[in-house]
C-alpha cells in the first residue's frame, strides 16, 4: 500500500492548494507541490508522472479533463512505480471523476479506507481500457484489417492518423499488449512485428442473474423487471430491439457505436463500480453507496447517467435501481485473419516464419480444439 495520498488543485488566484490528504499527518511543503506541478506542465500529454522529491517517491496523476487537479501518491521505499502505473492512473482518474461530480461530498479518507481503490483491474476492464486511449482504439482498428504489421510501419501510420509527431507507439500499444489483444515480437534481427491475437466485442446482455435473484428476494417487482428488459431486447414489432450479433458493415451503424460506448463505460472505473454492484440484484441508492463507498449524491448522478445510456433502470415505487442491460466485453478468436495472413504470405509481404509465428500465437491463445 502506498504511504499517503494527497490532492492538489491549482487555481489562478490561490495557486497550488492541497485540498485533501490522507493520512492527515502527511506533511508537505510548497517546493514539493511546485515541482510536481512543473513536471505536469512540462509534458502535457503525459498523465501519470513519477518524481523523487526530498526523498519522497511520488506518482502524480493529472488529466486534461480536469485541468488544475493532481492526485499524488507517496510510494513506500519498496514499491515500484512501474508496476503501479496502471493502478495509479486508474485511481487518479476515479478520484478526479468523483470530485468533479460532487466536490463537497468527496472524502479522500473514506474512499481510501473503505474503497480499496487500488484494486487490480478485472479481465473485462483490461479489455475495455483499450477504448480509453483514442490512439489505442485506432490501432486496434488498424490491426483488425492488417492482422500482422511491422511496428515501424504501424508507428508511421499512427503518426499520420493523429497528425502528431509526438504520439508514442509504445504508449498507444500498452493497453493492447496488457490485455493480450496483440503480441509484439522481435523476429529476425531487426524488425519488430505486431500480431493481432484477440479481437474484442462489447455488447449488452440481459441481466439474467439479477432477474433470477429478484424472483427469489423481491418477487413483487420481478414481473415489472422482466417487462422492462423484454421491452429493450425484444419489443413488439415493428420496433427491432437490440441484437448485437447482427452483422454490421456500416461503420456508422448504431450497434458499432454502442460497442464502443459499452467498452468506455466498462473502462470508466466510476461507472464500472456502480454497474458491478448492480449485477447481482437491484439495490437502493443507500446500498449502492455502501457497496461502492461513493457518496449517495454521486451514486445518484451516476445512476442517472447510466439510465440515460439504457444500462440502469429505476423502480420508482420501491425506490430501487437495477440493470436494464448488463454491459459485457469479450474477446474472440479473429478467424477472419486467416485469409489475410495467407494473402500477405503469397504476396511476399511477410515471410513464412512470420506467418507461422502468427498461427502459433493464435493457437497458444485459443487452444487447438475450440
Amino acid at each position, binding site marked *: 500500500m502506498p504511504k499517503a495520498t494527497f490532492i492538489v488543485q491549482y487555481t*489562478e*488566484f*490561490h*495557486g497550488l492548494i492541497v485540498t485533501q490528504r490522507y493520512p492527515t499527518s502527511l506533511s508537505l511543503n510548497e517546493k514539493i507541490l*511546485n*515541482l510536481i506541478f*512543473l513536471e505536469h*506542465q*512540462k509534458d502535457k500529454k503525459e498523465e501519470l508522472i513519477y518524481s523523487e522529491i526530498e526523498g519522497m517517491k511520488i506518482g502524480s496523476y493529472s488529466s486534461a479533463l480536469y485541468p488544475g487537479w493532481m492526485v499524488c501518491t507517496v510510494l513506500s521505499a519498496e514499491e515500484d512505480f512501474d508496476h503501479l502505473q496502471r493502478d495509479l492512473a486508474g485511481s487518479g482518474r476515479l478520484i478526479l471523476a468523483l470530485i468533479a461530480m460532487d*466536490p463537497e461530498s468527496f472524502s479522500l479518507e473514506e474512499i481510501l479506507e473503505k474503497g480499496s481503490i487500488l484494486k487490480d483491474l478485472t479481465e473485462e476492464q483490461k479489455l475495455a481500457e483499450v477504448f480509453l486511449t483514442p490512439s489505442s482504439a485506432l490501432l486496434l482498428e488498424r490491426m483488425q484489417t492488417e492482422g500482422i504489421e511491422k511496428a515501424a510501419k504501424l508507428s508511421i501510420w499512427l503518426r499520420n492518423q493523429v497528425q502528431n509527431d509526438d504520439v508514442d507507439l509504445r504508449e498507444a500499444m500498452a493497453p493492447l499488449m496488457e490485455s493480450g489483444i496483440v503480441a509484439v515480437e522481435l523476429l529476425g534481427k531487426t524488425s519488430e512485428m505486431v500480431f493481432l491475437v484477440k479481437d474484442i466485442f462489447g455488447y449488452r446482455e440481459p441481466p439474467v442473474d439479477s432477474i433470477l435473484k429478484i424472483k427469489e428476494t423481491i418477487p413483487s417487482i420481478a414481473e415489472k423487471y422482466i417487462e422492462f428488459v423484454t421491452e429493450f431486447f425484444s419489443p413488439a414489432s415493428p420496433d427491432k430491439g437490440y441484437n448485437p450479433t447482427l452483422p454490421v458493415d456500416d461503420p456508422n451503424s448504431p450497434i458499432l457505436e454502442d460497442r464502443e460506448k459499452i467498452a468506455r463505460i466498462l473502462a470508466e472505473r466510476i461507472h464500472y463500480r456502480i454497474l458491478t454492484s448492480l449485477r447481482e440484484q437491484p439495490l437502493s441508492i443507500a446500498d449502492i453507496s455502501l457497496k461502492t463507498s461513493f457518496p449517495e449524491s454521486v451514486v445518484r448522478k451516476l445512476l442517472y447517467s447510466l439510465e440515460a445510456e439504457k444500462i440502469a433502470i429505476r423502480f420508482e415505487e420501491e425506490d430501487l435501481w437495477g440493470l436494464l442491460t448488463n454491459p459485457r466485453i469479450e474477446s474472440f478468436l479473429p478467424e477472419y485473419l486467416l485469409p489475410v495472413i495467407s494473402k500477405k504470405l503469397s504476396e511476399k509481404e511477410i515471410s513464412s516464419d512470420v506467418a507461422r509465428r502468427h498461427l502459433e500465437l493464435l493457437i497458444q491463445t485459443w487452444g487447438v480444439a475450440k
Partner: protein
Amino acid sequence: MIRGVFVLGEQGNMIYSKEYAKGDSKANMVEFLVNLTHFLKTIDLEDKTEYMNVNISRIFYSKKDPFTFMFVADKADDANQIEEKMGELVDSFMREYANLALANQSLDGFDAKVDEIAVTMVKVAILGFAGVGKTTTLHLLRGETLPLVHDPTIGVSIKKLPEEISNANIVLWDLAGQSRFSILWAKMIANAQVVIIVTDSTLENVLRSKKLVSLVKDEVPDAKVIGIANKQDLPTALTPERVGQILSIPTYELVAIDISYRDRLIQIIRRAILEGKAEAKAA
C-alpha cells in the same frame, strides 16, 4: 474571489454587468442567469442570499423586487463573506440607484461602488529572470528580513501584502526566474491585474527582459505592467530611464536590499493597481 457582478431587471434584462475575471464561458453564464431570474420569480427568497454551484463557480443571488442581484464567485470562497458583500451591494443599489434604473437612466457612480465592494483580491505577479531580486522585493514589501544570498524560488511563492498597504486583498505571486521554470510563466500570470517586471538593470538582463514584456502583453493584455530597475546600488546599473526606454513600460528605480525604498515601492504598487482599474474602466 468575485468574478462577476450582475443586476437584472424584472424581465431578466441586464441592468448592470461587470466581469473581473474569466470563469465559465460568458455566453453560457448569461443565459443561465437570465433563466435563473425567471425561475426566481416563482419563489420567495425573503431577502436572503442563496447560492448554487455551477461548474467551477458558485452563483450567489438575492432578490429585491423587481431586481435580481447575482455574484459569480469561486467555490473556494468564504460564503459568509460573499453574502455580506451581497447585502452591501443590494443596500447601496436600492438606496441610490433603484430609481435611476427604473427610469432607465444611467447609473453614474454605481460602477465605482461595485469595485469598492466586490474587489476583494488583486493579483500582482512579479516576473523576471533568475537572481534579479524578485523575492527580495517581496520581502521588502512585506517588511521582512531581507535575504542576502540567492535562494532560488521553486515554481512560485504566493504571499499576501500586509493590510496597512491596502485594504484590498493584494496577493503577490513571486515567480521563479530560473529558465527551467519558464514554462510556468504564461500560466501563472493569468488573471493578474498588475505585472511587475524586475530587472537587475544590467544591459544584458534588460535586453533579455524585453521578451518578458511581450509575454505579458500577449497573455494578459489587460494587466497594468510596470518595470523595476533593481540593484541601482551596483556600478553596472543602467538608469531607470534607460531601462524604461528599452522595455517601453513605465519603470522605477529600486535597491531591494535597502529598506529606505520600501515606502516608495508601496506607493508605486498602489498606483499601479489604481491605474490598472482606471484603464480597465476606460476600455
